[in-house]
């Protein structure tokens, strides 16, 4: 097997494909994320009623649901390796960058699937304005990239801790705070029907946040992975 030319992308994809295969066999993380999203949405919608929710409130509500759903499942990719004690074999064969990128893609897929299911339900349950759907989707995509970009490294950190419990959300929240503030503000403007120009600053911010968090994660990940 002399072919050493397969690059980082192929290795990262191998990690991603393996995680997807394992996930499809157990569906543990996906179920957790989905059930969390749907349950919270249903409870909130049931207790608040459908009409007359202000754009600001809707925006905050949506991103709170997204945040906690993400927290319920995105650490699985790393915790699974620790619990099955497969970390050792992985450390000995794989490039840390490939592991990080593979897991990042995996988390992105999980959150993506969850978003595709929960977002329509959100619009149905809360009667949020659908007039600017395209703009909302744009915010949404940048939002979940940012969410995954910032939490995948945190997931790696907490998977090494002996007591995990609520640690994932405790560590993620401060890191995600600027992202969430910006996402809520952008979504509120979209619900308010403001034109694209008005959310340009937020979109730039979301993009910069995602790029910087992923870059910082790649630089720091090997220090976590070595432990």
């Amino acid at each position: 097997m002399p072919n050493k030319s397969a690059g980082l992308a192929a290795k990262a994809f191998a990690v991603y494909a393996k995680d997807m295969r394992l996930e499809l066999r157990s569906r543990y993380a996906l179920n957790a994320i989905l059930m969390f999203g749907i349950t919270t949405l249903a409870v909130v919608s049931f207790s608040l009623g459908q009409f007359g929710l202000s754009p600001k409130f809707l925006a905050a509500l949506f991103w709170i649901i997204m945040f906690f759903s993400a927290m319920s499942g995105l650490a699985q990719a790393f915790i699974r390796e620790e619990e099955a004690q497969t970390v050792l074999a992985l450390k000995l064969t794989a490039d840390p960058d490939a592991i990080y990128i593979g897991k990042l893609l995996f988390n992105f897929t999980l959150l993506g699937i969850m978003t595709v299911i929960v977002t329509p339900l959100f619009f149905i349950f809360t009667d949020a304005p659908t007039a600017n759907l395209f703009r909302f989707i744009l915010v949404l995509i940048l939002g979940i990239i940012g969410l995954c970009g910032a939490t995948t490294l945190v997931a790696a950190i907490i998977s090494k801790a002996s007591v995990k419990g609520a640690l994932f959300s405790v560590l993620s929240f401060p890191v995600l705070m600027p992202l969430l503030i910006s996402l809520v503000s952008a979504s509120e403007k979209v619900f308010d029907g403001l034109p694209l120009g008005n959310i340009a600053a937020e979109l730039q911010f979301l993009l910069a946040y995602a790029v910087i968090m992923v870059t910082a994660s790649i630089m720091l990940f090997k220090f976590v992975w070595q432990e």
Partner: protein
Amino acid sequence: MWWKILLFLAMSALIVLSYVTPMPQKQIGEASRIFYYHIPQAWICVVAFAMSMVFSIRYLRSHNIGEDDKAVVAARLGFVFCLLATITGSIFARVTWGSFWNWDPRETSIFILLLIYGAYFALRGAVEIEEKRASLSAVYSIFAFVTVPFLIFVVPRIVPSLHPEDSIVDENLKFTMGPTVRTIFFSSLALFTGLYFWMFNLARRIQRVQRIRLEKEI
């Protein structure tokens, strides 16, 4: 030893002077005296967290556990001063703006700093193996710090600031303070910095004694 006595005497003098001299800002009144304490505390909080960051980076480079010891001492002291700055700031906010907490950008950033380091200590508590704890918490503190500039950028766009920006310098970078106020203020900054390094050294000595004791037990 002598500089500690000096620090004690100077600090006492500072406390007295900060109350007997004319108040720094006439419109705000007596409450404005809190600025002799609030700003130095915020300053020490920044210095301590910055030092903690530097020690964390140095730990990741050298894996020398001493660097981690220093990082955690700096973070602890930074946290204490951060709390003090939050409390004094909140009192000041009550007097001048009418409520203890307004989610003003400064308040938001300091609140998140408290959250970051609260999370940092929670993480340290959750990892038993020393080297692991050191690496993981170093990575976390660096990673969390990367988000602070975002906060400074994003928060003021959403909530306008009420925080007095001209307490030290005006738009033309000229001192807004009179000579007495300026002297007391800068002495306070210097004395708090001295106090911080004293506390830092004390904490380091305690750590070293603990390490030696641990070594002897085994």
